[in-house]
């Protein structure tokens, strides 16, 4: 099915099943511990051996020798694969051009250099430590972003947006801001570390793994092992989170495959948690130079944004400019993204890549500008709303209700009651502040397919390689199928994550739910057409409801259509370019927070949070809300604690475990409220839906930073906003 025009009134507008706050259909498995994750597939294949990986002890240089003799002699050891045995296995996917294994060259700390396979986990782990590895260290590498030319804030990299005459407009602006902001490297830190079981059958390989993008992974594994894609099967029905860390295959999958081939047995490999931080990917650091000019009335006339970020490869870095090009009005714009090649591990997508760091910085800048202008920060943002792409004013936003997000939020939150004077509100020992920030993220989609099977008993089975990383794919896809086929969700069963099923959009870029449900719709329409054919009527004349198909006065239960046989249909949704040519399809939001800062110690705690989201049709308000509160929680982490600290001498992230890299815990998270505007976006998908899981993270950290400013009068421009950065400016005690 091609989606070449904006959606019209359609089956989803009846919203009997879609849009309902149904409980997750995979819930009983998850709460009982019976949903199977990658490392747990004991049933998948017999004879699994344990592989334990070894990461490089240096950040840059090469390995001259690996003596495996001690490890080979250790109890239970079945085999050892070292990087020196293989040519580099790298560039497996265009968006992830890194080296996973192979060769003598070390490009980053904890690069995988060996995997030791043994009968038991304990034996493999012990033997892995017996490898005798000789390194030659290259000490010429720079690991400090602030020491790169890009960090100067005005490099001559080609602008991603250059509209009007920024320099003149900024120079002549009545009110100006010129500041630099920094955001640190962040770790996805999903709860399930990367893990894979690999088993070979001749030249065919199956990987039970934890991967967000099954087809990308299948192609990547085929390239890694130099076999045809059809000889690769990936199965990933449950993922313990990903947030972008599992968009691409990682070294666990490559090592499991290599090791299984070498020892002639299935091998399972998981990355030890302390290896995850430096072996895999992260959100890159940024140094952002922001200049904003406005007239006396608060209309922005000039936006300058220069983003420096660390990247090991050409595809890497946190492109903080992404939201800046389109979020706010402003006729003169000069926006530059400047990745700096550094031998830290490669940075790549982490939830709302680009928007997160970009809005962490820019939404503080907006707060600062509002203050300079003497405007309420909500009013300032409203004043600079745009209904067209500011870089290409002929292209309108398809459906943008940012102003309504701000207004609804301000009203619900009681924004007008706040004390606008910084550092002037106390609750005992705590200084109280309120902050706001805007949220913006595009709403991309990807081609997505599914297969639907009408069973002889009238129930429906859905199959797709789509993944559920906690987003609720199982549930919203089942809801979609139920809606289109006139069933209840209890009539629908669904299997996901297997590359034997039709290729879907996968989970990433907040395109998953919107695309995959559209794919299910396409498959269901194909099924409806088959049913119409069997009934010898036009599909458009049929009504599917209550488990039956009605034509005129005739109603036929779905269980009777196939006459004892199943009826299968498969199709994909393909999105036409009208979606990007005629309109800008994006999602919008506003975050409001109340923070408390201890007047003595500077401890920062969040007291309440509100998000208002404009994301088109909400497919399931229960799971969508969970996406947003989860993103708000991650935003708290980014605001006040998360930082992968770089050792500039050794070139690695030092705090590489979950004790050193702090993410929010229960006590950090207060009451959270989420409001979804009742919008639909016909330009987006046949369901008029857009993603929301990444939008929820955008701007959260800045709202908190702005709240800390309001509480204390201390403006912190370097994340995370921790007490050491404010304690020197707190009131005397």
């Amino acid at each position, binding site marked *: 099915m091609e989606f070449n025009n904006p959606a019209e009134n359609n089956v989803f507008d009846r919203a009997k099943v879609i849009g309902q706050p149904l409980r997750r259909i995979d*819930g009983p498995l998850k709460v009982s511990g019976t949903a199977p*994750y990658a490392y747990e597939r004991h049933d998948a294949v017999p004879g699994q051996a344990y592989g334990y990986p070894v990461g490089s002890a240096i950040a840059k240089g090469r390995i001259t020798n690996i003596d495996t003799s*001690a490890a080979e002699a250790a109890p239970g050891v079945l085999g050892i694969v070292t990087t020196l045995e293989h040519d580099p296995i790298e560039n497996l996917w265009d968006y992830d051009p890194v080296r996973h294994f192979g060769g003598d060259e070390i490009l980053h700390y904890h690069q995988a250099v060996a995997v030791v396979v043994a009968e038991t986990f304990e034996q493999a782990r*012990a033997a892995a430590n017996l490898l005798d590895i000789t390194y030659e260290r290259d000490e010429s590498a720079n690991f400090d972003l602030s020491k790169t030319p890009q960090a100067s804030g005005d490099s001559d990299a080609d602008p991603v947006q250059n509209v009007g005459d920024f320099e003149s407009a900024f120079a002549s602006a009545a009110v100006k801001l010129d500041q630099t902001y920094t955001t640190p490297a962040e770790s996805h830190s999903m709860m*399930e570390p990367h893990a894979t079981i690999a088993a070979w059958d001749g030249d065919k390989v199956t990987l039970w793994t934890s991967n967000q993008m099954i087809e990308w992974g299948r192609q990547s594994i085929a390239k890694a092992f130099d076999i045809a894609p059809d000889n690769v099967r990936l199965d990933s029905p449950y993922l313990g989170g990903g947030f972008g860390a599992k968009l691409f295959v990682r070294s666990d999958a490559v090592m499991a495959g290599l090791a299984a081939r070498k020892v002639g047995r299935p091998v399972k490999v998981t990355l030890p948690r302390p290896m995850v931080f430096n072996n895999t990917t992260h959100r890159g650091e940024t140094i952002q130079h922001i200049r904003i000019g406005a007239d006396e009335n608060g209309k922005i006339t000039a936006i300058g944004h220069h983003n420096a970020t660390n990247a090991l490869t050409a595809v890497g870095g946190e492109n903080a400019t992404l939201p800046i090009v389109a979020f706010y009005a402003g006729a003169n714009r000069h926006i530059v993204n400047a990745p700096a090649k550094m031998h830290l591990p490669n940075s790549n997508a982490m939830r709302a890549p680009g928007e997160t760091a970009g809005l962490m910085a820019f939404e503080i800048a907006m707060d600062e500008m509002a203050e300079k202008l003497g405007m309420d920060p909500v009013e300032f943002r409203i004043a600079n709303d745009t209904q067209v792409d500011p870089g290409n004013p002929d292209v309108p936003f398809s459906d943008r209700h940012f102003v309504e997000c701000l207004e609804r939020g301000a009203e619900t939150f009681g924004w007008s009651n706040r004390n606008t004077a910084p550092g002037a509100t106390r609750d005992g020992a705590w200084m109280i502040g309120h902050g706001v920030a805007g949220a913006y993220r595009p709403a991309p989609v990807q081609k997505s397919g599914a297969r639907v099977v009408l069973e002889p008993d009238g129930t429906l089975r859905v199959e797709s390689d789509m993944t559920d990383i906690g987003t609720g794919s199982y549930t919203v896809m089942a809801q979609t199928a139920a809606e289109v086929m006139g069933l209840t969700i209890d009539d629908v069963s669904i299997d996901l994550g297997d590359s034997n099923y039709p290729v879907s959009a996968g989970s990433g870029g907040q395109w998953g739910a919107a695309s995959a449900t559209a794919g299910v719709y396409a498959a269901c329409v194909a099924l409806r057409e088959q049913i119409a054919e069997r009934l010898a009527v036009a599909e458009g004349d049929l009504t599917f409801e209550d488990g039956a198909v009605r034509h005129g006065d005739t109603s036929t239960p779905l269980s009777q259509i196939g006459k004892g046989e199943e009826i299968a249909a498969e199709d994909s949704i393909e999105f036409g370019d009208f979606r990007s040519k005629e309109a800008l399809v994006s999602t919008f939001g506003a975050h409001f927070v109340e923070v408390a800062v201890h007047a003595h110690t500077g401890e920062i705690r969040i007291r309440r949070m509100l998000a208002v989201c404009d994301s088109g049709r909400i497919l399931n308000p229960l799971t969508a809300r969970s996406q947003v509160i989860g993103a708000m929680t991650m935003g708290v982490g980014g605001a006040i604690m998360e930082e992968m600290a770089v050792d500039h001498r050794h070139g690695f992230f030092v705090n590489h475990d979950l004790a050193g890299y702090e993410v929010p815990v229960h006590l950090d998270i207060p009451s959270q409220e989420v409001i979804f505007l009742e919008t639909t976006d016909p330009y987006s998908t046949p369901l008029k839906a857009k993603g929301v899981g990444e939008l929820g993270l955008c701007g959260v950290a800045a709202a908190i930073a702005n709240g800390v400013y309001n509480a204390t009068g201390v403006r912190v421009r370097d994340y995370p906003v921790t007490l050491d950065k404010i304690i020197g400016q707190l009131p005397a005690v």
Partner: protein
Amino acid sequence: MKREHNGGITRRDLMIVGAATAATYAFPKVAYGQANVEAPASGEALKALDASLKSEVSFTVNGTARDIAVDNRTTLLDALRETLQLTGTKKGCDHGQCGACTVSVNGRRINSCLTLAVMHQDDEITSIEGLGTPDDLHPMQAAFIEHDGYQCGYCTPGQICSAKATLEEIRAGIPSHVTADITGPIEASDDEIRERMSGNICRCGAYSNILAAIKDVKGQNA
């Protein structure tokens, strides 16, 4: 380029290769709590010792008696997940930093990753599988579904085991970091629940919903 081999040029660089290798250090015998000492690291030496490095242990898991032979190094977590193939208990960090491996031992919740299986002779262990099944859910499991107290589901078994223990610990009057008066009775306030659940990290950020689920069960018990 600077060449290094098991110690390199300066002492400072020693550990750059040493740690990933079998480099031996001649440490004196030292006392408990002091520096690490070198274990025999040759494969041959270990093979000779192999039998003495395993133990048999008997304990009860979810009401079923289990007698298993384990490597002394096997954690309770790996005994559950790998030896007994009870994979409901999750490994998130293997270092006591996330709580995904939470189980109950003799009625108290612990991190099963930081305890050896061999240390649990005669103990009664309850994992998520012992609380309820998809067809016969424990009220806490049902409440997590009702309130969407999860997303990816990986931390969920640990959250549920901790949630159950949290209400029990409050009822037992065990104080917490947020207890205002540690000599008085303890109310199951939101912050009491949040604090006691803080050893279970949920990166999906379902905390608010988990709190709602726990309060729901608390209300049922009241």
